[in-house]
C-alpha cells in the first residue's frame, strides 16, 4: 500500500523550480518578519504580551462551550441567526440555502479563511451566483483559480505582470502592470461590486462573546463595505475564534496586527454587532453567523493537540519558517500552509494519506514557536503529529525496521563499537577523495547534494577504552 501521496513531490519540485516564487516569498516574508520584530519591540515587554495572549486563548479554548453559548444567545437576542456546521459540507449548505432563499445573484466577500477551508466559492457559482472576492489578494487568486499561498498575503506569489494579465480579460482592454493602473482598475471594479452585492460574506478574526460582536481586521476597508452595503450579511467563523469581552480583545488585536503585518493596528478594525437595530443608521437587516466545527471538537478533546486551537491566524510562523521560505504555500497542498497549516491540516482533515507529509515539512528548528504571539509550541506539535502517524500505522514497515535496528545498536554500545569498526572497513566503495560522496538510498538522499566524512576506524568510545587500559 502506498502511504504517501505522490503529488507531494511534484508540488515540491514545481515550487523549487520557480525562482520567482522563491524570491518573492523570501522578500515578502523577510519584510513581514522584520516589521513584526519592530512592532513587537515598540510595544515593550513583548514576552509578557505573548504570555497574556496564551493565557487568554487557553482560557477561551478550555471554556469554549460556555463562550459559544454566550455568543449564540447574544446574537439571537439581537435578532441574528446562528448556524452550527459540523462539517464543511454543512457550512456550504447553510450558506447556499440563504443565498437561494434570497435568490441572490451577486455575492460579495471579504477575506475569510473559513471560506477557503470549506471551498465555498465554487459551490455558490454552481448555484448560478456571481461571487466576488473584494480583498485584493483574494480577488487575484480567485481569478487565477488558485488557493492562497499565505494566510495573510494570499497572492504573495504573483508578479505585477501576472496580475495585469489576469485583470486584462475582465477589463476588456490592455492594462499596464504599474501599481496605480492595477489598483485603479480594482477600485472601479470593486465599487461596482459593492453596490451590486445582495449578500455580503465576511470572515471573523474574533467574535466577542459577551456583546455578540464580530471583529474583522482589514487593510483595504473592503470588509466594511461588505458588511454595511448588502441587505444580508453572512459571517463565517471557526468555532474557536472567540474572546470573552472587549478587555481581552484589546490584547488579542495588539498581538494580531503586530504579528501579522507589523502594524500597531490594522488600517481598518471593524467591530459590528449586527443585524441593524432600529437606532442604527445602516448595516445589514439580516445577519447569519455560520460557526464551523470541522473536527475542531475532536482537537478540543485531544489533550496533546488542543493548544493548536489557540492560533489566531496571524501568519507570523510562515514568515520565519525556513521551509516555507524555500517553497511558498502551494507546495503544502493545503488551504493552510506554513507551520500552523502543517499542524492543523492533518487534524482537521483526518487523512494521513493525503496530509501525512505535512508534519515533515519542518526541520524542527523551532523558529515558528519562537515567533508565535500566543506561544504555540508548533514544532513540538509537529513532532507529536509524527508520532501519531507512526502509532496509527501510517508509516512504511521498512521505517519501523530501521528504527528497531537503530534502537538495538544504540542500546548495546559494545556491539555498536564493533558495527562501527566493520562499517569503517566496508565504506571504501562510497569514498571519493577521502569523503563519502556516493551512496544508494537512503544514503544517496544525502550524498546527491552533500559529502559526508568517513566513519572513523576507531570510535571515540573505543579510543577512550584503549587509552584508559594503557
Amino acid at each position, binding site marked *: 500500500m502506498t502511504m504517501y501521496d505522490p503529488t507531494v*513531490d511534484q508540488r*515540491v*519540485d514545481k515550487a*523549487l523550480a520557480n525562482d520567482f516564487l522563491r524570491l518573492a516569498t523570501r522578500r515578502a516574508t523577510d519584510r513581514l518578519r522584520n516589521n513584526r520584530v519592530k512592532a513587537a519591540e515598540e510595544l515593550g515587554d513583548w514576552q509578557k504580551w505573548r504570555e497574556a495572549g496564551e493565557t487568554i486563548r487557553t482560557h477561551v479554548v478550555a471554556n469554549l462551550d460556555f463562550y459559544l453559548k454566550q455568543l449564540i444567545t447574544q446574537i439571537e437576542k439581537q435578532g441574528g441567526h446562528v448556524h452550527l456546521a459540523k462539517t464543511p459540507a454543512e457550512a456550504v449548505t447553510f450558506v447556499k440555502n440563504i443565498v437561494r432563499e434570497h435568490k441572490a445573484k451577486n455575492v460579495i466577500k471579504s477575506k475569510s479563511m473559513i471560506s477557503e477551508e470549506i471551498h465555498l466559492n465554487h459551490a455558490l457559482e454552481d448555484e448560478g451566483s456571481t461571487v466576488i472576492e473584494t480583498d485584493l489578494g483574494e480577488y487575484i487568486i480567485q481569478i487565477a483559480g488558485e488557493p492562497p499561498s499565505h494566510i495573510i498575503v494570499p497572492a504573495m506569489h504573483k508578479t505585477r505582470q501576472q496580475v495585469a494579465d489576469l485583470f486584462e480579460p475582465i477589463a476588456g482592454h490592455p492594462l499596464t502592470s504599474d501599481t496605480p493602473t492595477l489598483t485603479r482598475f480594482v477600485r472601479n471594479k470593486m465599487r461596482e461590486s459593492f453596490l451590486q452585492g445582495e449578500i455580503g460574506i465576511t470572515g471573523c478574526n474574533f467574535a466577542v462573546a459577551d456583546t455578540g460582536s464580530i471583529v474583522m481586521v482589514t487593510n483595504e476597508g473592503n470588509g466594511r463595505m461588505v458588511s454595511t452595503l448588502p441587505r444580508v450579511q453572512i459571517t463565517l467563523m471557526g468555532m474557536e475564534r472567540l474572546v470573552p469581552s472587549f478587555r481581552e480583545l484589546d490584547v488579542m488585536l495588539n498581538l494580531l496586527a503586530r504579528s501579522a503585518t507589523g502594524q500597531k493596528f490594522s488600517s481598518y478594525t471593524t467591530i459590528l454587532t449586527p443585524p441593524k437595530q432600529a437606532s442604527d443608521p445602516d448595516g445589514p437587516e439580516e445577519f447569519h453567523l455560520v460557526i464551523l466545527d470541522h473536527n475542531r471538537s475532536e482537537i478540543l478533546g485531544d489533550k496533546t493537540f488542543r493548544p493548536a486551537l489557540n492560533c489566531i491566524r496571524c501568519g507570523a510562523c510562515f514568515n520565519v519558517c*525556513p*521551509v516555507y*521560505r*524555500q*517553497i511558498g504555500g502551494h507546495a503544502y497542498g493545503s488551504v493552510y500552509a506554513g507551520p500552523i497549516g502543517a499542524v492543523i491540516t492533518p487534524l482537521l482533515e483526518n487523512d494521513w494519506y493525503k496530509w501525512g507529509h505535512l*508534519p*515533515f*515539512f*519542518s*526541520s*524542527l*528548528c*523551532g*523558529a515558528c*514557536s519562537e515567533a508565535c504571539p500566543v506561544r504555540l509550541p508548533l514544532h*513540538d506539535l509537529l*513532532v507529536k*503529529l*509524527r*508520532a*501519531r*502517524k*507512526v*502509532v496509527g500505522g501510517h*508509516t512504511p514497515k521498512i*521505517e*519501523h525496521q530501521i*528504527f*528497531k535496528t*537503530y*534502537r538495538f*545498536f*544504540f*542500546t548495546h*554500545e559494545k556491539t555498536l563499537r564493533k558495527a562501527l569498526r566493520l562499517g569503517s572497513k566496508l565504506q571504501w566503495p562510497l569514498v571519493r577523495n577521502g*569523503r563519502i560522496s556516493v551512496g544508494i538510498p*537512503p*544514503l544517496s*538522499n*544525502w550524498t*546527491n*547534494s*552533500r*559529502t*559526508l*566524512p*568517513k*566513519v*572513523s576506524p*576507531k*570510535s*571515540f*568510545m573505543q*579510543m*577512550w*577504552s584503549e587509552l584508559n587500559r594503557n
Partner: protein
Amino acid sequence: MKVSLFATCLANALYPDIDLTMARILTYLGHTVDVPEGQACCGQIAFNSGYFDDAREVARTLIDSFEHSEIVVGPSGSCIAMIHHYYPTLFENEPAYLKKANDLIHKSYEFTQFVVDVLKTPDLGASYSAKATYHPSCHATRLLSIGDAPLTLMKHIKGLELVPLTEAQLCCGFGGTFSVKMPKLSTAMVAEKAQHVLDSGADLLVGVDMGCLMNISGYLEKINKPVKTMHIIQLLGEGMKS
C-alpha cells in the same frame, strides 16, 4: 569537578577528535574526566521521526549510563536540548524514569554553556588566525538558550577575526533525519545557508553542532567551494596547542 562526557553518536562515530579534545580541554581546566560506558545516543533520531518507543529505549540507556555522574557535558546543543526539552515529554507516563530524566537535565550542559556560564572561564588562552563566522544552530539557541556562550569563547581567541553571518538564525536544513527524508527541502535550505557563508567572506565556519556543520560543509564541498569548518571544540583545541 568530576565531569562525565557525553560523546554523542555523531562525534563518536565520525568526529572522535572532538570528544578527545573536549576531554583534553576539561582536563586542562583541572577537572577529572570520565566517559561512562553504555552511553550511545540521546534518542533524537527516532524521536524526531515520531518513533517515540524506540527513542525512549535509547534514552533510558543514556539516562542509566549517567546515573552516577555529577556533571555531564556534551559537544552538541541539539543532543543536550533533546534531554532538556523532550525527555520530560518522553517519560511523562513513566514516573521512575521521569525523575531520573530530571536528574540528568539538572546536571547536563552543552560544552560552551558549561565552560562560559558554569566554569566562568571564557578565556582558554587560545590563539588562532582566521576570519571566522559563526552559525548559531537552532536547538542550541532556541531550545537550550545557550545565548552568546560560543561567541564569548570565540572573542577570547587571539588572532580570530569574527565576521557576521547574514540571516544567521535560519536553519541550515539539517534537521537530523529531515536531511534524508526531505532531501529536496533540506538541500534548498542548505544552499541558502552555504551562500550566506560564502558571502560572509569568512575562511572558517564555526558552530557548536556537528550535524549542522557537516551539512553546510558537505554541501560546500559538493559544489566545489569548500570552506574550512570547525566545531568550536576543534577550534579551541587547535588554538590551545600553541
